[in-house]
């Protein structure tokens, strides 16, 4: 069933009018028991299943997804990958992810189109330049790449930016992370799904988890639309729906679910070959290989599970974009959508045990967990396989909200997550 993808197989299929491709994963019915069940077939759930098989030899695994795989935030995000964080704990985590992304297409025989086109954060005054220098130093000390650009260097990288004398936010310089960039979101979900499936993992779509089976205080499985499924360990990777699931076993989480929106324009000739984020307008933009501008901004300000955006934020993001790049003002949007993101008090994720035996968590990625999919999967697999923390995941334990040892990237890196 497993077909290796290569330039040669593409050529061969071309000769047969591409009629010989087989499906990339099976559509199995759930078994009654697994070693591990993962709830949520987004990037984090699928990557977890893959690394359980590859790193830990655990293949009797099911990923249970209520809709279609990758249809949650993973298929709705603006695909920025970066590790430009302030605290060492965060850089360890996101840097692991960028490193895994750098090798992913080759490792798993699927082109995820990881393009290290650079990630730029603009600075708009001398004090901001000082903070930018501090950020660059922190990133370098923590072991990732960062450069401080002055205005002329930035102008060379992003000539379409607003350099007019009447600009509301004149640019003084920027932070560049060269190894940052974008990847294709669906491809990341599909790549992990295909690799996990070929290792024996059952991916069960259209199967909502309704409740947990708890015996003697231990989680031993889940009740689903397709009936009861038992497991030695259950991992929840359900992003914005984590609180809703865990309240079924009376566990409350430090999460608020908000809508985050994204926008894609009509296709244009290439105008920008990097990712630019302006903290003052809150908007960021890159250009996809098809030519569409991929545009994002901040959270809607009303807590929501609606999975669609509201107008005030659309207005804020669009006016921000036009302030950044006025020549885009005549460009038309093709599509707009929203995802339900899980925002924690310190804008850092939650990884580890829940307090209930047999039940583990991977959530709280909020607005920035696409970049973390390889690392989130890698670490969550290790947690599920061993029942304890990996060194890199330890600081992200739920316990930090009680000890107060937060990893406050919202304040530290000063960038949206």
């Amino acid at each position, binding site marked *: 069933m497993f077909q290796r993808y290569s330039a040669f197989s593409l050529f061969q299929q071309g000769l047969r009018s591409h009629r010989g491709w087989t499906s990339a994963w099976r559509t199995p019915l759930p078994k009654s028991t697994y070693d591990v069940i993962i709830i949520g077939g987004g990037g984090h759930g699928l990557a977890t299943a893959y690394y359980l098989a590859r790193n830990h030899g655990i293949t009797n695994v099911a990923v249970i997804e209520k809709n279609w795989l990758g249809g949650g935030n993973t298929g709705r995000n603006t695909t920025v990958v970066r590790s430009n964080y302030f605290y060492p704990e965060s850089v360890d985590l996101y840097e692991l992810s960028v490193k895994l992304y750098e090798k992913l297409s080759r490792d798993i025989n699927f082109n995820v189109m990881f393009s290290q086109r650079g990630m730029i954060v603009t600075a708009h005054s001398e004090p901001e330049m000082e903070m930018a220098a501090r950020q660059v130093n922190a990133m370098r000390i923590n072991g990732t790449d960062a450069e401080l650009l002055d205005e002329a260097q930035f102008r060379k990288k992003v000539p379409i930016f607003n350099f007019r004398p009447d600009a509301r936010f004149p640019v003084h310089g920027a932070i560049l992370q060269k190894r940052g960039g974008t990847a294709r979101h669906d491809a990341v979900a599909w790549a992990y799904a295909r690799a996990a499936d070929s290792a024996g993992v059952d991916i069960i779509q259209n199967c909502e988890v309704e409740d947990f089976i708890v015996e003697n205080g231990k989680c031993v499985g889940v009740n689903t639309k397709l009936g009861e499924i038992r497991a030695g360990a259950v991992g929840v990777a359900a992003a914005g*729906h984590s*609180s*809703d699931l865990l*309240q079924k076993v009376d566990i*409350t*989480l*430090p*999460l*608020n*679910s908000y809508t985050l929106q994204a926008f894609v324009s009509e296709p244009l000739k290439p105008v920008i070959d990097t990712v630019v984020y302006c903290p003052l307008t809150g908007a960021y933009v890159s250009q996809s290989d098809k030519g569409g501008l991929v545009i994002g901004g901040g959270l809607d*300000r*009303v*807590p*929501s*599970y*609606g999975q669609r955006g*509201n*107008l*005030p934020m659309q207005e804020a993001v669009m006016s921000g974009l036009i302030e950044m790049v006025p020549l885009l003002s005549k460009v038309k949007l093709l599509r707009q959508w929203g995802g339900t993101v899980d925002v924690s*008090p310190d804008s850092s994720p939650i990884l580890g045990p829940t307090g209930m035996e047999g039940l583990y968590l991977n959530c709280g990625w909020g607005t920035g967990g696409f970049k973390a999919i390889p690392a989130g999967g890698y670490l969550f697999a290790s947690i599920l396989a061993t029942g304890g923390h990996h060194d890199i995941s330890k600081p992200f334990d739920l316990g930090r*909200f*009680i*000890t*107060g040892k937060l990893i406050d990237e919202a304040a530290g890196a000063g960038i949206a997550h």
Partner: protein
Amino acid sequence: MQIFICPFCGPRDEREFHFEREAGKIRPDTTKLVSDIGWSDYLNEQRNTKGAVREVWSHLPCHELFVMERNSLTMDVIYSTSRRGPVT
């Protein structure tokens, strides 16, 4: 644009409002020793309900603090209650 209801000003544009927190949380009694878990429950834990919610909002132009009932899934706005009287 969604319309929220300020108990003092009436129906107004959502941009004029600010979400404060979930309703019904009581600050720990600091005349007694408060445990770390007690503080964490109060400061960090969220019900984050999918469906009918009660939340404290403020109307920025007039500074009214009030309880709004709405649905976090359908986004229907149901009712606003002023905090100036007793709130249950």
